[in-house]
């Protein structure tokens, strides 16, 4: 398949940047900043048309919104109706603080997108991101609200709904995850969701049967084998092979000195046995930095039975950044290109599946998300 351009979408705490590279991934052109000063939690290109971009945005003092481009970032227009909870008559209703996650739906559903918010809510657009409505019953369901907890139960800048996954074989088969609140699955297009947490560990002393205590950081479905999912969790790295209903902690096979705590996880698009993670220090007070100040991606080629350190090209010591859950991605080319963005504003690239790393950009704001898409010949760029 012929590719002519790789598009890397970098969402940061202070705006968004788009890096456009040739198919060899050696020459990069930077386009940005977009929305300078806005907090951009996620910037996603629609793989169904190769030109529609959605950006989840807010600033420190304005309400959240979604910006939309249909020409790969040349021009932007605000969503007419951004994600917002239903208004409660008694004044106790929730308000979206920020949209955190964006997922384009199935190719059979052009224009359909899902969004996850903080506080946790699930939203859907059927018009390419112009207007959003609450999706499924979970946003107001008393049981789900109990599992979601409150802002006190979530991550430092609010609990988040993320990892919205659409089964490539069936657009009605959906997953999402909540930090905290567990992983959930629907077989009927979101009419009903059910917890999907068996086998996952929780912090010692809490009941693993209660989704409230689960903190999935990043869940990925293998495109080449959709019955297999991996998960980077607050309590380790897991794999599941359906129809099994029980997650297996494959992170136990990571080196003990590194551990299996982290945020991002990337699956190989063509090989369900190959996965990359970026471990972080989750000991004591959770520094959320590279373990021992030594950064590295870890890769498994055997579905988590063994893990290999991949740090060639990275600084060897005294490195104290880390990689957030949305900030590591793959481009789909062969050999696969891997990308990650750091909390210190560096964008890193490997053109050979992690064998060698190169820093593509420095001095960006804190990177929240990195998404990559290789555009194919026949898809006309603007």
């Amino acid at each position, binding site marked *: 398949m012929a590719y002519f351009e790789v598009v890397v979408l970098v969402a940061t705490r202070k705006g968004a940047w788009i890096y456009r590279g040739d198919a060899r991934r050696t020459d990069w052109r930077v386009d940005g900043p977009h929305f300078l000063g806005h907090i951009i939690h996620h910037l996603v290109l629609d793989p169904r048309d190769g030109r529609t971009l959605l950006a989840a945005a807010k600033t*420190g*003092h*304005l*309400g959240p*919104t979604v910006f939309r481009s249909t020409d790969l970032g040349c021009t932007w227009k605000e969503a007419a109706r951004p994600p917002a909870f239903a*208004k409660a008559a008694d004044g106790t*209703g929730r308000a979206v603080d920020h949209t955190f996650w964006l997922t384009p739906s199935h190719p059979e559903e052009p224009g359909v997108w899902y969004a996850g918010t903080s506080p946790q809510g699930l939203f859907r657009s059927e018009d390419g991101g112009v207007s959003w409505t609450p999706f499924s019953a979970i946003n107001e369901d008393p049981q789900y609200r109990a599992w979601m907890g409150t802002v006190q139960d979530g991550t430092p800048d609010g609990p988040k709904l993320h990892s919205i996954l659409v089964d490539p074989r069936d657009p009605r088969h959906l997953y999402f995850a909540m930090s905290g609140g567990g992983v959930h699955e629907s077989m009927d297009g979101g009419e009903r969701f059910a917890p999907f947490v068996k086998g996952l560990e929780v912090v010692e002393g809490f009941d693993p049967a209660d989704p409230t205590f689960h903190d999935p950081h990043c869940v990925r479905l293998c495109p080449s084998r959709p019955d297999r999912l991996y998960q980077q969790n607050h309590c380790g790295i897991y794999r599941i092979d359906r129809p099994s209903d029980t997650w297996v902690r494959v992170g136990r096979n990571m080196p003990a000195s590194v551990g299996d705590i982290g945020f991002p996880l990337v699956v190989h698009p063509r090989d369900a046995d190959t996965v990359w993670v970026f471990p972080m220090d989750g000991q004591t007070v959770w520094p959320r930095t590279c373990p021992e100040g030594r950064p590295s991606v870890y890769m498994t080629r055997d579905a988590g039975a063994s893990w290999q350190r991949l740090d060639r090209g990275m600084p060897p010591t005294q490195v104290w950044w880390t990689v957030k859950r949305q900030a590591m991605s793959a481009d789909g080319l062969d050999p696969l290109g891997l990308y990650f963005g750091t909390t210190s504003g560096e964008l890193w690239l490997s053109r050979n599946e992690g064998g060698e790393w190169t820093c593509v950009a420095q001095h960006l704001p804190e990177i929240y998300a990195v998404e990559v898409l290789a555009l194919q010949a026949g898809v006309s760029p603007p």
Partner: protein
Amino acid sequence: MKVLIPQVLHSYTPGREVAARGTTLAEVLADLDRQFPGIRFRIVDEQDRIRAHMRFFVGGEAVRDLSQPLGESDEVIIVQALSGG
């Protein structure tokens, strides 16, 4: 009536000063949103709560209630308190 818009919202309006109609602050905000789609949601959330850091002043007095009655001669100043880093 005259409404003064803070700089962070100038991407929605033609400038700092705009005109809007309404007998309450809520109606003025609704009219602003009709003229400048999307501006209200950046100021007021979906539960009709004024967002953190957003303040309204009418006749030099702080107003915290969207049902506050307004007269045609009133001037509404929307202020955004900068915070964070």
